[in-house]
C-alpha cells in the first residue's frame, strides 16, 4: 500500500470500504454522492482526500469558478493543462476517463463514451473502442464513431492546434501525405484512426503501446462534428458532448456553461451533473482569488495548483480555515537537471558528488517546506504513479548531505578540490531562487562552486535552460525544472523527461538524461501489455536514471487546496490531481 494508507485512516472506515469496493476498473455506474455517508460535512483538514466531503445529490444552483490566468484553449484538440482536462469533461466526453471520486481508485481509467475499455490486438498495435448507444451533441445530432475519428484526425494539425499533446501524432500510423484535415482534406486517415461502423473506433499504432486507455482519456478523442468545425476558431464555441454547453464566452474574461438538454444521464455513469450553471471568471488576480475563495464569493479555483504564499500564511495558522483545506501530494517532481554536456559533469562520479553534497532538507525548505512545498524526493517517479517504488541511492544522514561521500566521489572523478559550474533558475519564481541559493551553499562545503543565473520563466525553456546550444556554450551544469504527469503511469510521467530521443534544439525540459540504456528500457516498458511487468520496468527506468545521477530530485510537490463554500460533493481525484470537477454540486 502506498502512503495514501495513512491518509485513509483519517476517513471513516465505512467510506474507505465503499470506495475500495468500487475498484476494478470496470464500467460500473457509480454515484459517489450517494455512496458517501453523512457527517462528512464537518470541515476537517484533508477531508476530501479519502472521502467525499459534503456529499449531496441535490441538483440546481450555480458554481462560481475563477482562474488566475487563462486557458491555453477551450478546444479539446488544443489544450494541455490538467485543469483543462478535468474541467473540460463538463462539456466534452472522451472515450475513457479517470474513475471519479477520492482515493487510489482515481488513478484508474473507466469507459466514458466507450462501453468498455480498449481492446488491444495481441501485438498491442491495434486498439478498438465501442461507443455507447444514445449519445448526442448539444444540437441533437447523434455522436458516432466518425465524429471521434474526425476529432482525432483534426488534432493532428499542430499548426492550427499547437498547444495540445502530440502523443497521437507519434503513436498512430498516419499516411505519409496527411497534413491535417484542413490542408489535405482528401487524404484518408483510416490507416491511423477509423470508424469501422457508427459505434466502433479503431486506432492503428506504429508500435506496441500499452497505456492507450490513458491516452484516449485525453480530450483529443472528444467528438467534434465535422460540419461545425471552424479550425482555430472552434475554441470560441465548442459543440458540447457533455452535460453542459457554452452559454456565453468572452475570450480572456469569462464564460458560462448551462445544462445541455441533449445529454442523457443514462448514457453517462461518471457525471452526476448537479449544478444548473457554471460561471468562470478568467485572469483573476491570484492573491485576490485566494481571498475570495476564503470569503466565499468564488467557490472553485480552476487551476487547482494550490494557494499562493500570501494565503498560506493566513490559512495554516487558522484552524477554521485550515480545516477547509486538503494537502495532497501531486504527481509533480521539482528537480535539478545535472547536465553532462560540460566538463567535469560528463563524468558520472562528479554528478554523484552533487547528489551527495546536496542538502535535501534545505532544498525542501526552499520550496516552501513539507506542507506548501512537498515531500523530500529520493527518486524520479512521485508516489501516486501506478507501481511507483520509493528508493534512495544517495542516502545521507538526516537527508542533510554528506560532504565526505561527496569528496570521495570528487576524488573518483579526478577533481579532489572540487570544480566550478553554473546553475540556472527562473528568476521570477522565488522558490527556485531559494533552491539555487540552498544548492550554492550546500555544494560549496564540498568544494563545488556554483554561479547562479536567473532567467524569465517565459523564455526559460526556449532561450536558456531548455536550449541545447545555450547550455553548451554557457557551461550550464545545473538547472531547476519541474515536471507533472500527464497520466499516472510510468510512461505518462517519465517519458518526456528521461527519453533522450525527445531532445530538440529548444524548449526542452530534459537536457541531462541521455542514456542509451534508459532509452532501451523505455521502449521495453512502453510495449509491455502486462500491467505488473510494465510497472516493474518503469521502476527500473527510474533506478537507471538515478544511477546515472543526471537528475537530482528535490520534492514531490504538494498543494494546499481549499474547498469552496457552498460546494457539495468535493473529492480529491488522484487521476486529475485536483478536485474532481464533474462531481461538484452547489448547496
Amino acid at each position, binding site marked *: 500500500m502506498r502512503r495514501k494508507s495513512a491518509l485513509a485512516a483519517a476517513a471513516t472506515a465505512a467510506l474507505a470500504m465503499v470506495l475500495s469496493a468500487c475498484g476494478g476498473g470496470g464500467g460500473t455506474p457509480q454515484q459517489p454522492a450517494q455512496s458517501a455517508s453523512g457527517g462528512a460535512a464537518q470541515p476537517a483538514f484533508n477531508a476530501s482526500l479519502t472521502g467525499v466531503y459534503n456529499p449531496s445529490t441535490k441538483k440546481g444552483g450555480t458554481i462560481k469558478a475563477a482562474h488566475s490566468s487563462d486557458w491555453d484553449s477551450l478546444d479539446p484538440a488544443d489544450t494541455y493543462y490538467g485543469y483543462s482536462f478535468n474541467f473540460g469533461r463538463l462539456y466534452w466526453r472522451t472515450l475513457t476517463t479517470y474513475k471519479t471520486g477520492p482515493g487510489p481508485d482515481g488513478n484508474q481509467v473507466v469507459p466514458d463514451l466507450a462501453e468498455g475499455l480498449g481492446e488491444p490486438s495481441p501485438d498491442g498495435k491495434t486498439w478498438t473502442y465501442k461507443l455507447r448507444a444514445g449519445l448526442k451533441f448539444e444540437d441533437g445530432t447523434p455522436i458516432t464513431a466518425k465524429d471521434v475519428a474526425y476529432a482525432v484526425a483534426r488534432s493532428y494539425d499542430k499548426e492550427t492546434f499547437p498547444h495540445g499533446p502530440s502523443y497521437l*501524432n507519434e503513436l498512430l500510423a498516419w499516411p505519409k501525405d496527411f497534413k491535417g484535415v484542413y490542408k489535405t482534406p482528401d487524404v484518408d486517415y483510416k490507416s491511423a484512426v477509423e470508424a469501422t461502423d457508427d459505434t466502433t473506433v479503431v486506432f492503428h499504432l506504429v508500435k506496441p503501446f500499452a497505456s492507450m486507455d490513458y491516452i484516449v482519456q485525453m480530450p483529443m478523442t472528444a467528438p467534434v462534428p465535422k460540419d461545425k468545425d471552424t479550425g482555430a476558431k472552434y475554441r470560441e464555441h465548442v459543440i458540447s458532448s457533455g452535460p453542459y454547453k457554452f452559454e456565453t464566452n468572452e475570450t480572456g474574461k469569462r464564460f458560462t456553461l448551462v445544462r445541455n438538454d441533449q445529454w442523457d444521464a443514462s448514457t453517462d455513469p461518471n457525471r452526476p451533473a448537479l449544478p444548473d450553471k457554471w460561471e468562470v471568471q478568467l485572469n483573476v488576480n491570484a492573491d485576490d482569488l485566494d481571498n475570495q475563495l476564503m470569503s466565499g464569493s468564488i467557490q472553485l479555483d480552476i487551476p487547482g495548483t494550490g494557494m499562493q504564499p500570501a494565503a498560506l500564511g493566513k490559512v495554516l495558522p487558522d484552524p477554521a480555515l485550515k480545516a477547509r483545506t486538503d494537502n495532497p501530494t501531486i504527481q509533480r517532481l521539482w528537480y535539478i537537471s545535472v547536465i553532462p554536456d560540460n566538463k567535469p559533469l560528463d563524468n558520472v562520479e562528479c554528478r554523484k558528488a552533487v547528489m551527495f553534497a546536496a542538502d535535501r532538507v534545505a532544498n525542501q525548505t526552499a520550496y516552501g517546506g513539507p506542507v506548501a512545498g512537498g515531500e523530500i524526493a529520493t527518486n524520479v517517479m512521485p508516489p501516486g504513479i501506478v507501481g511507483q517504488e520509493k528508493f534512495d541511492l544517495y542516502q545521507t544522514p538526516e537527508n542533510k548531505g554528506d560532504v565526505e561521500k561527496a569528496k570521495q566521489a570528487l576524488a573518483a572523478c579526478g577533481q579532489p578540490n572540487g570544480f566550478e559550474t553554473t546553475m540556472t533558475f527562473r528568476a521570477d519564481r522565488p522558490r527556485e531562487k531559494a533552491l539555487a541559493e540552498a544548492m550554492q551553499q550546500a555544494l560549496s562545503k564540498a568544494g563545488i562552486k556554483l554561479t547562479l543565473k536567473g532567467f524569465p520563466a517565459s523564455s526559460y525553456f526556449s532561450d536558456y535552460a531548455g536550449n541545447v546550444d*545555450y547550455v553548451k556554450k554557457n557551461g550550464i551544469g545545473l538547472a531547476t525544472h519541474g515536471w507533472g504527469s500527464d497520466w499516472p503511469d510510468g510512461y505518462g510521467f517519465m517519458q518526456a523527461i528521461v527519453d533522450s530521443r525527445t531532445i530538440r534544439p529548444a524548449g526542452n525540459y530534459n537536457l541531462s538524461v541521455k542514456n542509451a540504456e534508459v532509452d532501451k528500457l523505455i521502449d521495453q516498458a512502453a510495449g509491455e501489455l502486462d500491467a505488473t511487468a510494465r510497472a516493474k520496468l518503469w521502476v527500473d527506468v527510474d533506478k537507471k536514471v538515478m544511477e546515472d545521477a543526471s537528475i537530482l530530485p528535490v520534492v514531490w510537490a504538494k498543494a494546499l487546496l481549499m474547498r469552496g463554500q457552498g460546494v457539495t460533493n468535493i473529492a480529491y481525484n488522484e487521476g486529475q490531481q485536483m478536485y474532481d470537477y464533474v462531481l461538484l454540486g452547489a448547496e
Partner: protein
Amino acid sequence: MLTYIIRRLIGALAMLIVVSMVTFGIFFVVPQWAGATPEALASRYVGRAATPETVHLVAERLGFYDPVVVQYGRFVKGIFTGAQYDYGAGVEQCPAPCFGYSFISGQPVWPDLVDRMPVTFSLAIGAAILWVLGGVAIGVLSALRRGSFFDRLSMGTALAGVSLPIFFTGMVSLVIFSYGLGWTPPGGAYTPLAENPALWAYDLLLPWITLAFLFAATYARLTRAGMLETMGEDYIRTARAKGLKEREVIVKHGLRAALTPILTLFGIDFGLLIGGAVLTETTYTLPGLGQYAILAIRNQDLPQVMGVVLVAALFVVVASLVVDLLYAVVDPRVRLS
C-alpha cells in the same frame, strides 16, 4: 496655431513609429542577440513537450523565418490595409486597423482593444474626478490652514498615498470593505455603464478610490505648494484690495493660477492612465487595457503587446498635445510665443 498642431501631429506620428519599432526590436532583435532561433521564439507559443515539428509549423505560421524588417513591414501594412488570417478551416479578412492576431488565443487584437477601452476609460474618468476634486480641495485647505492639524494630517496621509503601492492598498481595501464588511463588490466585478449605471458606479467604487488615493496625494501636495506660492503673489493682494470676497480671491485668483502646472500633470497622468491602469486593473481583475498589457507581456504575445503599446502611446501623445493646447487657453501669456 494650425501649423503648430500639424507639426505636433507629425511629431506624434514619428513617435508612434519609433515606439512600434522599439517594441518590435525588443521582442525580436534582443532575443536574437542572445542567440534565439525562430524555433526558440516559436516554442513560447506551443503546448508543453511539443515536438520539433510542431515548433517548426508554428514558427512558419507566425512568420518567424522572415527577416525582422519583413515581419515589421507586414505588421505595419496590416494596420493600414488589413490582413488575412488562416484559421485552418478557412481564411478570415482582418479589416484595417488590423493589429494582427494573438499568438496564443488566435483572437484579432483590435476588437479586443476596443472592447477593453470602456473599462479603462470608466476607471480613469471616475478616479480622475475623485482625485482632482479631492486632491485639489485638500491641497487648497491645507495651504490656507498651513501648519494646522488638518494640514499635517492630510499631508501625512498624502505621503502615505504616494508611497503605498496599489496592489497593497487595493488588496487591503478588498479584504476590509468587500470580504470583511461586505460594503463593496468582490474583485473582478464590472458592469458596463450602458447596462446599469448604478451598478457600474458601485462596482468601480473601490478601484476608483484606490486609484484616486494614489493620485490625490500627489495632487494635494502639488496644489498646496502651488497655492502657498500664488497666495503670496501681488495680484492676490490686489484682488483683496478690490474688496473681493475671500472665497473668490482663493478660487478665482489663487487657484486659477495654481492649477496651471496641475493641468499639465493631469493631462499626462490621464493619458497614461487611459492607456491602461495596469496595477489597479490587475489588483481588481478589471478587464481593461492595463490588464491586457500585463497578460500580453506575461504571455509574450507580440501582436497584443504591439497593439496595447501603440494604443497607450497614442493616448499619451494625444493627451500631451491637448495639454499644450489647453495651456494656451489657460495661460494667455503662452499664446504669444
